């Protein structure tokens, strides 16, 4: 499934003294199977954009097309389109509320009016997707779990709706390195199995590891869009946007400036490892 943003503009408090333009003329297409990372400084419009992806907001002008259908169009089955796009907000564990993990995950599917067996099957499948053992956790209170586990329950609640596109707003914020790796591993697996992923992130390291495309937002405008390799080789542009590049990309630039012959666009540790080892062997030492 694809989502196309056409000249999307969003203005908050139009016509008042507090008028502010959050998004300005954004043109961006999310294609089936993409893993798009959305990056930008605080207040750049990322969260506004995310809310447009499933019609939580209506554009001030421009369009959001889901598989070619305008989300704000007349006679469009908005509810059906929306359900295909699962939104995981920042710190989603704050939204858990049920007595047990299974009940919390079942909340969405139950509201769809599905039969009990179908709901149960979806809960089990979603728990498996986020690596939570059903036997062990289904009847536990979500509030007794660790922060990382609670976040996985919250993500399972969205997965139980069987979305085709998963949109995550800073899914690893506040987690320790181990918890972060688990969440990223889960997202990576979902993408591999065919889910289209849009991930908002401040961590360029996470972006470098997973994304197939990167969109850079700055002050409500789309500053650049491309593969991680294209984006991370533009260090100055990223700095101007208030962002960093992965440390590996910074090392690549720093070594080149020191006169070491390396390709200009390396951005992962593995690439640096291979290139440096090659140089070392060529030097014959």
């Amino acid at each position, binding site marked *: 499934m694809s989502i196309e943003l056409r000249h999307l503009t969003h203005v908050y408090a139009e016509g008042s003294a507090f008028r502010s333009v959050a998004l300005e003329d954004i043109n961006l297409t999310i294609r089936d199977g993409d893993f798009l990372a959305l990056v*930008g*400084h*605080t*207040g750049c419009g990322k969260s506004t954009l995310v809310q447009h992806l499933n019609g939580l907001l209506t554009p001030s002008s421009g369009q959001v097309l889901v598989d070619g259908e305008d989300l704000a169009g007349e006679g469009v089955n908005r509810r059906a389109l929306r359900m295909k796009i699962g939104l995981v907000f920042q710190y989603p564990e704050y939204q858990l509320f049920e007595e047990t993990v299974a009940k919390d995950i079942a909340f969405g599917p139950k509201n769809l009016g599905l039969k009990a067996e179908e709901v149960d099957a979806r809960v089990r499948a979603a728990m498996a997707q986020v690596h939570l053992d059903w036997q062990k956790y289904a009847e536990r209170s979500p509030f007794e779990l*660790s*922060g*990382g586990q609670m976040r996985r329950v919250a993500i399972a609640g969205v997965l139980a709706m069987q979305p085709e596109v998963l949109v995550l707003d800073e899914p690893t*914020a*506040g*987690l*320790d*390195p*181990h*918890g*972060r790796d688990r969440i990223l591993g889960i997202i990576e697996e979902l993408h591999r199995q065919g889910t289209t992923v849009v991930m908002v992130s*401040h961590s*360029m*390291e996470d972006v470098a590891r997973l994304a197939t495309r990167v969109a850079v937002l700055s002050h409500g405008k789309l500053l650049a869009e491309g593969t991680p390799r294209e984006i991370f080789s533009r260090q100055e542009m990223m700095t101007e946007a*208030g*962002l*960093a590049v992965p*440390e*590996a990309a*910074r*090392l690549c630039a*720093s*070594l080149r400036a*020191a*006169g*070491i012959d390396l390709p200009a666009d390396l951005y992962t*540790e593995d690439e*640096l*490892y291979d290139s*440096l*080892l090659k*140089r*070392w062997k060529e*030097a014959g*030492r």
Partner: protein
Amino acid sequence: MTEERIKVEEVSYAYEEGAAPVVKHVSMDVRPGEFVAVLGHNGSGKSTLAKLMNALFVPTEGRVYIRGMDTADDERLWDIRREAGMIFQNPDNQIVATVVREDVAFGLENLGVPHEEMLGRIEQALRTVGMSAYAESAPHNLSGGQKQRVAIAGILAMRPSCLIADEATAMLDPSGRAEVLQTVRSLCREEGISVVWITHFMEEAALADRVIVISDGEIALQGTPREVFPQVERMRELHLDVPRMTALAARLRAAGMPLSDRILTVEEMTEEVKAALCPSN
């Protein structure tokens, strides 16, 4: 009065009587102007340790002294909290007023500081964190990094000797993180304030004078960043990372490149790789 700003002596803490302790026999000191990073996986007990340093919690066993004041001594509670200010993760939960200047004034008003002196202290605190231009602004219009700096100014206005930060950059974007970290480091260097910096970002810990790693409520490792981070395997066992450059250097070293185990930053890595590849210069 002792030389240590913060002295933790054989401290254990359990949330309920008879429950398993979440902090076990921890002893540590923080000296004036020292920047100590505390690392540990979620649930390791590091946030509990932070709260013990601010008398939000009182040890079940052992003692915590802030500038010689025992945190178990109720009569010193407000002196202790004034000496050891604390900032938390979420910038939005720490702002109480609708104007920046008033937010910074909040703690001082509670202390009953005379009005004239209060104005001076607020100005100075805002200047120190680089937020003077925003004194009349509404906090909700500020970025996350700016809000955290306002929260720090609110603490500085109380003239504390210690600052305890519990993942103060976790919710910030990269430029916000850099802003806050730079502010706090200059507080150590220029104002001599002692900082306890709890973080999940290894690159931040790499800038500390000392790193303490907590696991299951105990100190698992401690030393300078150059002593702690080369222990790549041990850190992984503790569910933690090491700075990326340290990890890459360790891999290249294992493959035969002559790089030291003291590399923490891109700059250090560049120097050593250059020396390894072009030994003539």
